[in-house]
């Protein structure tokens, strides 16, 4: 793949997505900026309702029903996804950007063989491809994700959960995209299978070189796989940080929410395990708290946090949206 390492594969500028409801707009994603460079793996972590899946769907222009992009732009390889015609989009999607969905069972068609589904993907994007060529490529893909080619003739229900997810990954990378979104690709799998899929993703990514936006709620998993991690809360990226800072042992400064998440996970190998958790509950998007949406749950909250939404400032290697670092709060750099 020929991509300039300095030209981003994905540029999100001030993106906002809202759901239209009877009570007006409910903002699920608020003014997000995010850039991905070629060959990079970026993690996107958040709790349910933080807007991470909405954002993933917005990037793919797959928003359905009542969700609309109210503001901002999504550029992939420099092209605005929302300015393409339906026809251009159909060509662009999957050949340049693709997506691995959470549930491998529902992402595959249960009444079609694996072969039919891979060939379908290949031939509908490249009409000049002969059936023999497509079959050759299908075999290549099966080898890449390490499934025996005899399973080309299998139906999804004949495969184990891990194999199904491998097939979904094979279909996602069939057309050599520059950019793949993986939306919780291992959540439904057992730990050992999850690990083998992650190793597989890393191996293929190193070989083929596409960029990945890896969406997950599992902090430790994302920290292992990605080089940078975006932490979402209530529709905003509250922190963007290199993944090696995400440990209680690391000394870098973090957003209070990130600290809370780090302290909420019992560490597997530490000598003494103390967990604290974050008080309260994730916010309701209909009644988002004023100012910084995290302030009702934040141990450092002060008056300014209830009034003004913090803007991102660079703190060490991270970009953090918090008044601890904005210079506007009374408490600073705790």
């Amino acid at each position: 793949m020929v991509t300039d390492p300095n030209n981003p594969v994905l540029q999100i500028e001030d993106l906002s997505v809202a759901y239209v409801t009877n009570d007006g707009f409910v903002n699920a994603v608020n003014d997000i900026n995010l850039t991905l460079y070629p060959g990079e793996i970026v993690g996107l972590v958040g709790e349910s309702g933080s807007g991470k899946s909405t954002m993933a769907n917005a990037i793919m222009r797959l928003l359905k029903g009542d969700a609309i992009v109210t503001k901002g732009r999504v550029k992939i390889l420099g092209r605005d996804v929302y300015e393409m015609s339906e026809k251009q989009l159909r060509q662009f999607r999957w050949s340049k950007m693709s997506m691995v969905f959470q549930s491998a069972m529902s992402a595959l068609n249960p009444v079609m063989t694996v072969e039919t589904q891979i060939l379908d993907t290949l031939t509908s994007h490249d009409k000049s491809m002969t059936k023999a060529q497509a079959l050759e490529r299908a075999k290549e893909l099966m080898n890449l994700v390490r499934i025996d080619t005899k399973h080309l003739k299998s139906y999804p229900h004949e495969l184990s959960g891990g194999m199904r997810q491998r097939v979904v990954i094979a279909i996602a990378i069939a057309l050599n995209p520059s950019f793949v979104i993986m939306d919780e690709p291992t959540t439904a799998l057992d730990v050992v299978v999850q690990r083998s899929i992650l190793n597989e993703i890393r191996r293929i990514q190193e070989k083929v070189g596409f960029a990945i936006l890896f969406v997950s709620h599992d902090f430790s998993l994302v920290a292992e796989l990605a080089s940078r991690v975006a932490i979402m809360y209530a529709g905003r990226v509250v922190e963007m940080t290199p993944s090696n800072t995400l440990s209680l042992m690391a000394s870098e400064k973090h957003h209070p929410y990130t600290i809370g998440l780090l302290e909420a996970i019992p560490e597997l190998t530490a000598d003494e395990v103390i967990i604290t958790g974050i008080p309260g509950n994730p916010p309701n998007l209909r009644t988002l708290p004023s100012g910084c949406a995290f302030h009702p749950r934040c141990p450092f909250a002060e008056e300014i946090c209830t009034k003004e939404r913090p803007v991102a400032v660079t703190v060490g290697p991270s970009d953090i949206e918090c008044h601890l670092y904005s210079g506007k709060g009374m408490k600073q750099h705790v």
Partner: protein
Amino acid sequence: MSDANQPLLRVEDLVVRFPIAGRQYIRPVDGVSFAIAPGEVLSLVGESGSGKSTIGKALVRMVEPAGGTIEVNGQDVTHIRGRRIKDYRENVQMVFQDPFGSLNPVRTVEQHLAFPLRKHRMDKTVNVNAKIDELLEKVGLTPVADTRQKFPHELSGGQRQRVAIARALAVNPKFVVADEPISMLDVSIRAGILKLMNDLRADMNLAFLYITHDLASARYIGNRIMVLYGGKVMETAPSDELLRHPSHPYTRLLLAATPGSRHQGDLPETSNTAPNLVEGRRGCPFASRCPLVTSECHEVEPALTTLGDNHSVACHHPA
């Protein structure tokens, strides 16, 4: 309890079998033995299909064991029926994985708690209303007056799981089976539920069987961990001992695969085939995936042998 050293719960050689096509049977639980003392937490760890939930269901007698015995307080409850089951469940309760499915959407929190209190009202003088307040207080759902009138859809996942726990506590049980109580909750909420379980254990001397697939939380909450595979116990040890000196190849694989473990690099390539649960199988259930497999493993089932310090392992080639 007559004797302080007597375990609250003793399970010997538990077998559960289910019929499958072709007049055959599978054994999702096959010869499992363990004991739990009052106020103790045993973590049951295994992947889907390992039989961990089936053991939990057998303990609260939602399924009837095909073999072995379950004794609670010295009483055999393996095959009790009818009224005795109802009485038994005053001692043993269950919290389910999915707090969205385990609560009735058209009943308020108050109704959820009043039902077991009335059904199991041992002492007619107990004030149901006051007891509901006390339960909600205990699980941290305050202000109580507000929470009582709420329907499940008005609560977050963590709050719902607290209601489910309060409901289990309503009958003053001595033992609770918690089947993956945090796996459907958000990360920031999980710690709160784990801490609540820890507090209840300390305050009420409540014993738990904590069922999970996550070693980190199993270690946090459990005094002991029992690793299950294909319906059999692979290894059991005090939690810290198990994580520090894992002996069974499956335990080591599980440990290396868990995110956040110090193990880096590739795992030994093993097949992903599910274990054979059909009755009459031979050998070790993990043999088809084990990196250390020898011909002996396919023929002879390894017995659970003691390594010392309450640490036992069922493997022909323990580390």
